[in-house]
């Protein structure tokens, strides 16, 4: 029921903003429409994250339309979007992409949620040469297939926790310890995303010369990490790196506290979506969390303002986020729509091939970060950010250029 409420809230918000935009800009008879399409997970196991993404899309479309829409030549266009629920299943996602393109006449696509769904839809958009800007598929396997029409605004998954390794090496040096003496424990779920994260971490471990003492793979249906934690009891590593979506983050946090382990540095993905602070309070203090975006970053753009303004406005307009932190999944979805607007205006046409070329040459600063695509379509201009939970707050500690707070080490 909660989700329905959220959806309704988002829909109300959108229609309200669209209504304002119409009155403000006089619903000029010359305003055309640009129809975007997206298959998104509204039910099934990705439903929560799917709703984040959809809220981001809706919010961005309403904002852009309210700010005058998309100007191509001397004509103004308003964004519209057609959604289908892919039920969190890749096969359904593929079918719906066909349907959007063939039956609904969608010429420009917004991405679905998760790498798996993006992997199912990308071949379809590629086949029909439909440009797709996606915001929620980070697996690097999406960007080695030679896709020409796929563009992603987020950082790829092997970058998620690599900076944690560099941070551990730096801390070791500051404390007069050789990096080779830094013992690392790895616990990664056996799924494409987490293994990507692991690959990035392993590269950096090799680069900085750290020693791996535990290298555990976790099952997909994981509920229990005690075997890994027991090894940590025995081997006392200096750094623990965990990636297993929100269930991995939650389970690890819970069991570290339950088994009274003291690990000087712990880094993981999905802290926010696992709601570590809300669920476990002070026991999660000192954890390092990888994030695509943080509201404290200093980027800004003319539509959404600064990252913190975006954050405040979401909290104000969407009641579901009033009391919890705005997830980065929402921010990057909004950024994807903005990238479309920018490319349309630069291409000066509605032609999808010209649009594709304009997308490829995107060089844009958004509230979410810089966007610039490699030939493979992934965003190479935006670094991942590492935040530490300090007194129940997420504070940016790495990379140094963006850090708002000092790293607290060792964690208590």
């Amino acid at each position, binding site marked *: *029921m*909660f*989700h329905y409420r959220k959806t309704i809230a988002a829909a109300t918000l959108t229609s309200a903003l669209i209504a304002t935009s119409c009155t403000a800009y006089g619903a000029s008879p010359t305003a055309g429409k640009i129809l975007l399409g997206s298959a998104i997970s509204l*039910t*099934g*196991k*990705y*439903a*929560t994250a799917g709703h984040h993404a959809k809220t981001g899309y809706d919010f961005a479309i309403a904002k852009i339309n309210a700010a005058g829409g998309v100007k191509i030549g001397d004509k103004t266009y308003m964004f519209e979007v057609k959604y289908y629920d892919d039920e969190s299943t890749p096969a359904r996602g593929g079918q719906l992409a066909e349907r959007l393109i063939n039956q609904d006449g969608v010429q420009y696509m917004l991405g679905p949620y998760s790498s798996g769904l993006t992997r199912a839809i990308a071949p379809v958009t590629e086949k029909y040469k439909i440009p797709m800007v996606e915001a929620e598929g980070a697996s690097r396997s999406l960007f080695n297939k030679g896709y020409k029409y796929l563009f992603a605004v987020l950082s790829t998954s092997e970058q998620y926790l690599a900076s944690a390794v560099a941070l551990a090496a730096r801390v070791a040096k500051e404390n007069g310890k050789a990096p080779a003496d830094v013992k690392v424990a790895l*616990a990664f779920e*056996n799924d494409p995303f987490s293994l990507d994260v692991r690959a990035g971490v392993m590269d950096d471990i090799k680069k900085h010369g750290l020693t791996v003492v535990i290298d*555990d*793979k*976790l*099952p997909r*249906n*994981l*509920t*229990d*990490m*005690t*075997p*890994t934690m*027991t*090894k940590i*009891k*025995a*081997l006392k590593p200096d750094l623990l790196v965990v990636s297993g979506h*929100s*269930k991995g983050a*939650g*389970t690890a946090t*819970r069991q570290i*506290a*339950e*088994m*009274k382990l003291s690990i000087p540095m712990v880094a993981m993905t999905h802290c926010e*979506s*696992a*709601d570590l602070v809300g*669920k*476990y*309070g002070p*026991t999660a203090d000192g954890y390092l969390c990888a994030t695509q975006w943080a509201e404290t970053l200093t980027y800004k753009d003319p539509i959404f303002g600064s990252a913190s303004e975006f954050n405040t406005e979401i909290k104000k307009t969407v009641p579901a986020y009033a009391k919890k932190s705005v997830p980065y999944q929402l921010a990057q979805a909004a950024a994807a729509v903005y990238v479309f607007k920018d490319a349309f205006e630069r291409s000066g046409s509605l032609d999808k091939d010209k649009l594709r070329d304009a997308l490829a040459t995107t060089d844009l600063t958004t509230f979410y970060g810089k966007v610039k695509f490699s030939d493979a379509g992934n965003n190479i201009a935006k670094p991942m950010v590492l935040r530490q939970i300090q007194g129940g707050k997420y504070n940016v500690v790495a990379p140094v250029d963006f850090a708002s707070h000092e790293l607290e080490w060792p964690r208590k």
Partner: protein
Amino acid sequence: MLDNILTNIDILIGAPALALDMVVNGLLIGAVFALIAYGLALVWGVMNVKNLAQGDFVILGAYVAWSLFNWGIHPFFGIPVAFGVLWLLGGGLYLFDFENKLASNMSTGRRVLFFAGFCLIGGLLGMTIVDNGNYSVLASVPDTFFIGILIAVFFVFLVFGGIYGFVIRKVIERDLFTSLLATFGVAIVMQQSMNLIFGSDEQTVSLGMESISMLNNNVTIQPTRLVAFLCAIVLAIAVVMFMKRSRMGQAIRATSQNARAARIMGIDTEKVYAFTFSLNAAICGAAGALVAVIWEFQPFIGLIFSIRSFVVVTAAGLGNLPGVIAAGLGMGVLEQTGAFVIGTQYQQAIVVGMLVIVLLIKLVIASRKRQVIDT
């Protein structure tokens, strides 16, 4: 992989206390597995229904406990009151007694609903009384925990009255595939409903209780697991006593031995089936509340509890309660130690592998026995 195993064994030799830690924790969680498996053995043995939705029942119980925890219900619940509520529950059970003239005109479905409603009201009344009395015995254990368990039991009982009436009643004593397919369908509907109602996020009931550590922190025991273990044991004993002593328990056992003969003896097997199914649901509800305080859960995690209980029941055999408890505890220990030595990602594989071995041994024993009779 062999290298990994050797290193892991090396760690254990270096710190044998860790092995003790794993065994103790394995036993504690094994009690929860045993409880769930016992419920499964009950419906399987009595009704010949292989309930593939067993794990989902458990997760529903977990959500009930979690919801209550979030609503912040925290009147105290002590042992005397638990006793009082159990007494009320016993009163409710009486409605089901097939010799009770007062209730004998009602249809089975109505009785299930009536009974569940009765339990719910009784439970709420009991809690209100205690809340006003502010009675405190186990101050260290948050009260919500016990209340969570009780209400989970009642709620799940209520829902399953409905499921029983619409689905299960039609597949009792049918062949294997009918019941597997029907309960598989129930499992899917339940997963998606829970996903719609509660969302797909992982949830947990975190009581924030400090662990007890011993032997230089090499052995750590979570009080929640300890409480869960004790609850599981108490529940198991209560169920066994019920099956042995009460008339309904006798009727259930009679029906499971031979349903037709039981009918001839005047036992209303329809009622027995409905009751058995509801009893299993109540057991799952309680187990779910325990799951909620031990692990993180989400709507789709039920399957692994279904698998575990199927393995336990298959290994132990139907109608063999000591066997089910031993197998459940054994599985807890095996999961912990096996995953440590071979690797966490093989945790489920170890369990299923063990089942294969047990079945093979059983097969060998059975074939020997047959030969003896032949000659």
